[in-house]
């Protein structure tokens, strides 16, 4: 076997192409086909049926509730994520590492357990819930409960996107800005924000995708009242169990489109970040 032009493992043609074909095959089977299936099933009754299913009363209500949940969850977690990332990457204090680990909890916890946690606390038998009931406030089995549980499940995402980036960028630019006299807000708006904007965008888009798609936790606290407390994923479950596969996949296609948009945004963000890291071209003149 010739080694003159081979510098790294797996560069020989047959190895390379075998592995590539294997990878492509697996990608096709595991990732592409499922996507295809969603759209094939959704449109299996024709475009008009698809539209009719989408604009069905209960589906529209589900979409509306889902949008409400996203509209409340995303800004909240955006703010939290930014503050936490700033705190944890720009300051030293006891308990910092603990805080970073704590934020990973929703990541590790089963969504059903997450829903249960909130049900126990805010349900009519829970210690906070009982008190709230007395004041005629019902959080569980209503849309506020869904929002709260979704906030729990999606809170790490913005922070997890920002923290490694901000750690890697270091605080020097911000120190320089402070030395030059910038106030807190000026510092954030002019120096920090431009540096993190793409990661922030992706964090927001990811939070949105997960907020819109959360199922396990919402199942527990929702009450499944058609038209009232069914988000789109729950609605999909309902349709599927009613043997209305086409209807279920129609709603699923909507969510699949959101997932694809999320992937697109991520690609875009990575492309932008790669451009920024491109090697600097040295000028011809000295110094």
């Amino acid at each position: 076997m010739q080694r003159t032009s081979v510098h790294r493992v797996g560069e020989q043609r047959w190895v390379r192409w075998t592995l590539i074909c294997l990878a492509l095959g697996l990608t096709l089977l595991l990732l592409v086909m499922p996507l295809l299936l969603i759209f094939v099933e959704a449109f299996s009754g024709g475009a008009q049926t698809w539209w009719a299913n989408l604009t069905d009363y209960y589906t529209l209500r589900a979409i509306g509730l889902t949008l409400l949940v996203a509209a409340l969850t995303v800004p909240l977690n955006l703010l939290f994520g930014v503050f936490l990332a700033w705190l944890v990457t720009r300051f030293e204090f006891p308990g910092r590492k603990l805080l970073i680990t704590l934020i990973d909890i929703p990541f590790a916890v089963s969504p059903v357990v997450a829903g249960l946690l909130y049900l126990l606390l805010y349900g009519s038998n829970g210690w906070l819930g009982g008190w709230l009931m007395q004041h005629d406030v019902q959080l569980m089995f209503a849309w506020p409960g869904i929002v709260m549980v979704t906030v729990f499940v999606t809170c790490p995402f913005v922070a997890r996107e920002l923290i490694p980036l901000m750690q890697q960028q270091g605080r020097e630019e911000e120190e320089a800005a402070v030395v030059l006299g910038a106030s807190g807000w000026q510092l954030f708006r002019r120096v920090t924000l431009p540096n993190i904007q793409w990661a922030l965008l992706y964090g927001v888009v990811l939070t949105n995708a997960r907020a819109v798609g959360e199922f396990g936790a919402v199942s527990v606290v929702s009450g499944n009242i058609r038209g009232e407390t069914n988000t789109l994923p729950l609605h999909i479950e309902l349709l599927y169990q009613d043997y209305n596969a086409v209807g279920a996949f129609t709603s699923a296609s909507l969510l699949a489109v959101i997932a694809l948009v999320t992937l697109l945004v991520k690609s875009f963000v990575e492309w932008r970040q790669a451009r920024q890291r491109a090697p600097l071209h040295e000028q011809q003149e000295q110094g």
Partner: protein
Amino acid sequence: MNTKRGSLLPRLTSHPGKRVLPGFALSMGVSLLFVSLVLLLPISGLVVESAGMSWAQYWAVVSDERVVASYRVTLWAALIASLFNGVVGLLLAWVLVRYSFPGKRVVDALMDLPFALPTAVAGITLAALFAENGWYGQWLATLGIKVAFTPLGIIVAMSFTSLPFVVRTVQPVLEDLPVEDEEAAISMGASDWTVFRRILFPSLWPALMTGIALSFTRSLGEFGAIIFIAGNMPYVSEVTSLMIFIRLQEFDHAAASAIASVVLLASLILLFGINLWQARYLRRLHGR
């Protein structure tokens, strides 16, 4: 807070970082408030509820036969799915980092699909694919393999939803591998497999382990993707998260809490373990 007059007395706290960059108090306040309200308070609720049961009751619930069967099903399926993901994920990461081919950017982007796709959508899709008359199901039926409504279906669902963890954990490490090590080894006459086994894999395996562990942790708690394809037959294809759900529907909050506490404890232990592992091994690797 800043006095105009300096002092020769020693300061009680010396945290200069706090003072130079603004926003410490505000960001600390917001973060602590949020973390307490959203994360710690609910967890303490569970602890209180579980503490409310007597030890005997607690034990009876968590060691109930059906529940124990669900532990077994969940753990085994998660293990197999994670190991499968370890192999497939490594392959995919390798191909994406090392080779160019048409459509590579698309494939790379698709790796995140299970992460971005709602679990319920994944659930009904996988169920439809592997049902007996589904695209894959019919073909597998000719081989005598049944996936839907069996534990195999659980493995498939777990594998699908947690594949990105392995790929995305291994990719950066693969990208950072120094070329010189390989070149040196190959120039000394070592075969590809030897170089891979003795030079590349030792650098890769901490990240691979981390990815597998993350995949495992995620699979333990997976719900939406599983319940459509699993069949959910007690003792056979019922996962623990479903057990919790069932107890809740029976309004047996105490039992649900008890089982959930087991799951939560396991997840937290795994989480801390993974973080410690990452801190030790991945830093050691990058420290050179």
